């Protein structure tokens, strides 16, 4: 069953239209990757799904129309975003960052805090430090942990690998894959690094200048000659 269902999504900034009306689906328990070059509209797609910018077309989450919903009600429904460039609260402590991530929740969040400190032990070591003093990799972990604090059913990750050492990227993707496999967390991931993306994805959408030009399973796209040439460099 499809958890997120997008039809005819068009969005942009002021008079500039970036997305020209494409369809996209994320099924329950899937990792879906949006692959595309700079300026293809990947981040705009994420912002449109999160309700951060005005959009046209239909966006449904778990059967509910969220095309005109506000960002806070979308988080409440169970979609959390890890924004591009991490977007941590630089002058707040690590712990406060995570507590802010749980803002929409009314129940006790201490257990979740402990849980993500187990998954990311480095965050526990730095829990009283300001987020701005963390390394890039640690900030990315924090951004992911913060998003998970809201207990999302769908996690949007906007280029988590950006500017990180390969080893750290691998570690992060390992965590995401584990969450997906063990708890059925659905993930919509934006990537420029196609090698990495095709490894973790169940399905892939190829985005070019605001339109989906190709879609299929990760294996199908990896086998496609023209895609290999353009995105995998071989």
């Amino acid at each position, binding site marked *: 069953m499809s958890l997120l269902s997008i039809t005819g999504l068009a969005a942009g900034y002021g008079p500039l239209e970036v997305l020209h009306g494409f369809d996209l689906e994320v099924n329950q328990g899937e990792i879906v990757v949006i692959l595309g070059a700079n300026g293809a509209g990947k981040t705009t797609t994420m912002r449109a799904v*999160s309700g*951060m910018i005005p959009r046209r077309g239909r966006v449904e989450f778990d059967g509910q129309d969220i095309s005109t919903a*506000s*960002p*806070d009600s*979308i*988080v*409440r429904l169970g979609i*959390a*975003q890890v*924004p591009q460039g991490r*977007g*941590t*609260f*630089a*002058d*707040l402590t690590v712990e*406060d960052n995570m*507590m*802010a*991530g749980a*803002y*929409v929740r009314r129940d006790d969040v201490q257990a979740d805090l402990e849980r993500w400190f187990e998954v990311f032990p480095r965050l526990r070591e730095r829990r009283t430090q300001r987020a*701005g*003093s*963390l*390394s*890039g990799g640690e900030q990315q972990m924090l951004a992911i942990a*913060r*998003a998970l604090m*809201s207990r999302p059913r769908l996690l949007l990750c906007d280029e988590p690998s950006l*500017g990180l050492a390969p080893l750290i990227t691998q570690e992060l993707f390992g965590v995401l894959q584990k969450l997906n496999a063990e708890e059925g967390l659905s993930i919509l991931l934006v990537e420029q690094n196609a090698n990495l993306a095709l490894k973790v994805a169940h399905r892939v959408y190829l985005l070019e200048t605001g339109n989906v030009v190709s879609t299929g399973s990760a294996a199908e796209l990896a086998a496609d000659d023209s895609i290999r040439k353009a995105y995998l460099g071989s």
Partner: protein
Amino acid sequence: MERLLQYIFDGLSLGSIYALLALGLVVVFRGTGHLNFAQGEMAMICTFFTWQFHAWGLPLVVSVLLGMVAGFALGAGVEVSLIRRVAKKSEAGVFVVSIAMFLGFNSLAGMIWGNLPPEEMPSLFPDEPDDFVKIFGAVWRYEYIGIMVVALLLMGLLFLLFARTKFGLAMRAVASNPESARLVGIPTGLVLASSWGIAAAMGALSGAMVGGLAGELTSLLMFTPFIYASASATLGGFDSPGGAVIAGLAIGVGEQLAAGYAPGWIGQELRLGVALVTIFVVLLFKPSGLFGSAKVERV
């Protein structure tokens, strides 16, 4: 020695009012990144509300509380109806709007309550000539003590709100990164409106205390205190609540010392100079203020 102690006492009391107003400036600045030039005039209008409630026969304390409620509504209303809309179009526009509000509120007060003769404003605290206590020979009036206690108490409550509550966390998150605050589901509009509301409510309380000290109420009531408050916020750093409080107290004492020890031929007018020179020097040598943070981020 007695004289010095006297100036320090008076300075701390007056300084706590400046601190309260400065804290209002900082709360707004941290939330929306704007300097609200109308903060003093909004406080003045609210003081007229307070006076009006009292004139209708309500007890003074109740009137002041109602004045603060009115202040909250005014501040939140201004943010929702004006600031938010203008800020979408142009940041410089907000500056112009806050200057316009400065003039507007001033004229409005004159229009409704009249400029002359001044209204009589009672004090919240005992203010008869013999209401004082002597400490090491210096006179500390009950009214001055009351002002300081109430101002510090309110500021303490505010710091608890910032540090210990979920709403305070939301305010800090919005100040730190508005975009991410929206992404984690914080209703940023509500937070910003509340920041303006809280600032205006604090202004209403400062206004009631300044009015009580002066004993009378005119539309010029908050003009000078606002300049001192601006100097305090500049000195402490516009994004540092703690800095605003410390700087407010320091400027209060500085003002009293300058006025007290100034040679006769300069006269009392030097007081205001303390504030203006402070603003000038801080902006020249340490624009982010003593406790403010120049934005640094590791990538």
